[in-house]
């Protein structure tokens, strides 16, 4: 058992030894293209024994969910300890042992809104990588206006009957369970009739269909619910609704803010992907004699470096106690910057860039995919709405 000492230096020494003992050298410092993210779940195939051992060792210590309480499968680390843990993972080139929507989203929702019994049942399944979750929020008729979801759960006494469809459900075809926003009161104002429901993807009537994007194949799916029966109280005695009945919007709002804060915390780096400098090194240096390309590259580099500093600053702010709605700025600025970067990379690569599989590898699909960055997880326009209304507190009339 690890010594989770309060003393930072002892903690760092202990966690370093532990990572080195359990994360095999074959997993460490792998190129992003070779690195398969470990998602877990019932149908997960580990890419190696080493990947399985690493996830299981981390799960045994609660280190797949470092900040969660120990009783729910976490390691109960403090913010400072979590920072040290992540620093040491990065320094040793060790991959995160497990990533999932359960860790990122459902877990935080349960921790904030779930009952003790719900937490005891669902959270350890997530931290052990046994159950893979997907998110059912958007619908064909409910994109930016998420609160207008129409998928309905009808009350049939001891169970709900769920009918409708969700879109942009990432990895729904590989997920075991889905957390979804469903309408449980059709007469209430739109924000007041939504519940946050947990549904087994193996239940009769649930089907999925992958979505092909302009950039090619994608993890996105459509998910259909055709009279799916969801017990009100399941065999473990748990309600399948998180938070209050018809209180799902509060859970969703909490999660959306949490999601954007995590972007600031570096959970999913917005500045990942191809770097401008590394890309230029592969190109004929003469290309930068073009004054427009050169100017755009210089401006992009300045803005990228300043944005990287902002991610660091907001990450520290988040660890010290929260950023709140201001995190919408990171989402807005980071995604718009990423689109700019890929536009420039395409310009620099010239006609090579427009081949489906040219000398740069799949640059064109990557470029096309960035166009979704400022749409998914809340459009840039929704981010600007959040900033102007909640941070700047500009009036509504």
């Amino acid at each position, binding site marked *: 058992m690890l010594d989770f000492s309060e003393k930072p230096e002892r903690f760092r020494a202990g966690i370093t030894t532990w990572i080195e003992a359990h994360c095999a050298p074959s997993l460490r410092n792998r190129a992003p293209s070779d690195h398969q993210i470990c998602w877990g779940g019932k149908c997960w195939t580990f890419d190696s024994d080493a990947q399985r051992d690493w996830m299981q060792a981390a799960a045994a210590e609660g280190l797949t969910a470092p900040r969660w309480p120990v009783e729910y499968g976490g390691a109960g680390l403090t913010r400072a300890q979590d920072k040290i843990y992540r620093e040491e993972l990065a320094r040793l080139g060790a991959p995160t042992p497990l990533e999932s929507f359960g860790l990122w989203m459902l877990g935080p929702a349960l921790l904030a809104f779930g009952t003790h019994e719900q937490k005891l049942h669902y959270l350890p399944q997530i931290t052990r990588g046994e159950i893979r979750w997907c998110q059912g929020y958007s619908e064909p008729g409910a994109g930016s206006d998420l609160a207008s979801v129409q998928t309905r759960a009808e009350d049939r006494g001891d169970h709900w009957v769920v009918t409708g469809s969700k879109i942009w459900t990432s990895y729904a075809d590989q997920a075991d369970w889905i957390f979804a926003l469903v309408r449980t009161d059709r007469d209430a104002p739109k924000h007041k009739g939504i519940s946050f429901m947990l549904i087994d993807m193996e239940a009769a009537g649930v089907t999925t269909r992958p979505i092909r994007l302009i950039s090619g194949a994608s993890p996105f799916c459509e998910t259909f619910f055709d009279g799916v029966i969801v017990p009100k109280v399941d065999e473990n005695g748990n309600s399948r609704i998180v938070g209050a009945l018809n209180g799902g919007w509060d859970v969703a709002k909490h999660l959306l803010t949490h999601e954007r804060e995590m972007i600031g915390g570096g959970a999913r780096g917005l500045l990942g992907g191809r770097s401008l400098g590394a890309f230029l090194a592969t190109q004929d240096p003469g290309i930068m004699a073009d004054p427009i390309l050169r100017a755009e590259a210089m401006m992009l580099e300045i803005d990228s470096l300043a944005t990287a500093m902002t991610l660091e600053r907001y990450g520290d702010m988040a660890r010290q106690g929260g950023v709140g709605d201001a995190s919408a700025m990171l989402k807005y600025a980071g995604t718009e910057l990423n689109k700019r970067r890929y536009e420039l990379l395409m310009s620099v690569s010239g006609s090579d860039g427009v081949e489906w599989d040219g000398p740069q590898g799949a640059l064109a699909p990557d470029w096309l995919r960035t166009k979704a960055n400022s749409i998914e997880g809340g459009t840039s326009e929704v*981010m600007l709405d959040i900033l102007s209304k909640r941070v*700047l507190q500009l009036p509504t009339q």
Partner: protein
Amino acid sequence: MTQSLIPTTDEVMLRDAARGFLADASPVSALRDNRDANRPFDPGLWREMAQMGWAGVLVPEDAGGADMGHRAAGILAEEMGEVLAASPFLSTAVIAATALRAAAHARLTDIAGGDVTYALAVDEGTKHAPEATALRAAASGNGFRLTGQKRFVADGASATRLLILARTSGSPGDAQGLTLFDIDADRAGVTRTARPTIDSRDHAQLDLTDVAATGADVVGTLDDAMTVLRPALNAGQAALAGELLGLSAGAFGMTAAYLKDRRQFGRTIGSFQALQHRAAHLWSEIEITASAIANAGRVLDETPEEAALAVSVAKARATATAKLAVSEGVQMHGGIGMTDDFDMGFFMKRARVGAEWLGDYGYHAARVAAARGF
């Protein structure tokens, strides 16, 4: 990097103290008063700043300074920028103090005490280019004779001392062969001509004709001015970026308040989404620039020899952000924003001068490109 980009408790206290002091002692109306009285700054205000330790913010404690570091200097500059406080802070407490400190110069004590003010005379053309210096310091007996012209010398008409970059060997364009002289502003042969600038601050042209100088006037080493000047310019550029960030926040604060107050078409104009999104975008730009500036201060304090990239990112960002903040400031205020009675014009004018001083966007973008290898 060991420091976080979040302010420390001491830094929060310094900012609060500076803000409180400046709100009383130097609101934007003080700049208007200075302008109307044809006065580049209020010497009484500078005395008070010196008493609070601001003049010695970068002076070592054994020379009577507060030695608070570049992050602290940036915070002070930012707070001054927010209310457009006019003072010799950047020229004296940041630029001259850093140059003299790099040369372990005895006059640092006078800076900390507020007993001298400095102006840095570098540029001779319309753009920042230290290496292009042609002003000649010709050997003469045991000393030198300085002859030539310097332009756009900030605080040049009012400073009691001048730091003059002169060519002692080589030719314009060479980074070597330059020497930095520290001379009394009233020395024989120095003609100072005020060149009133749009920001109502002190800018002068210096004409030097056979100005006598000795080896004792040299700061640092003969023919090697850049060893002392480079850190001073980096410090000045970072603090100026801080001032421009504060200026941006000041202009934005006025604009956001106006959006909540002004009514047209029967509603508050801040309720129009077209304006909301522009305001939110501007706020985002200011936040991102603030990170670049905090980082520049951190790098200057921790690894100053590697500061060029961080400083140039900060100055370039601050220049662009300030331009956006004042342009949007005037546009969103509408007609009132164009009037001299209203303060927004002061922000716009100072932003333009700050954009040019110590290197414009292109100068710093080129330094970033060089540091990043393209």
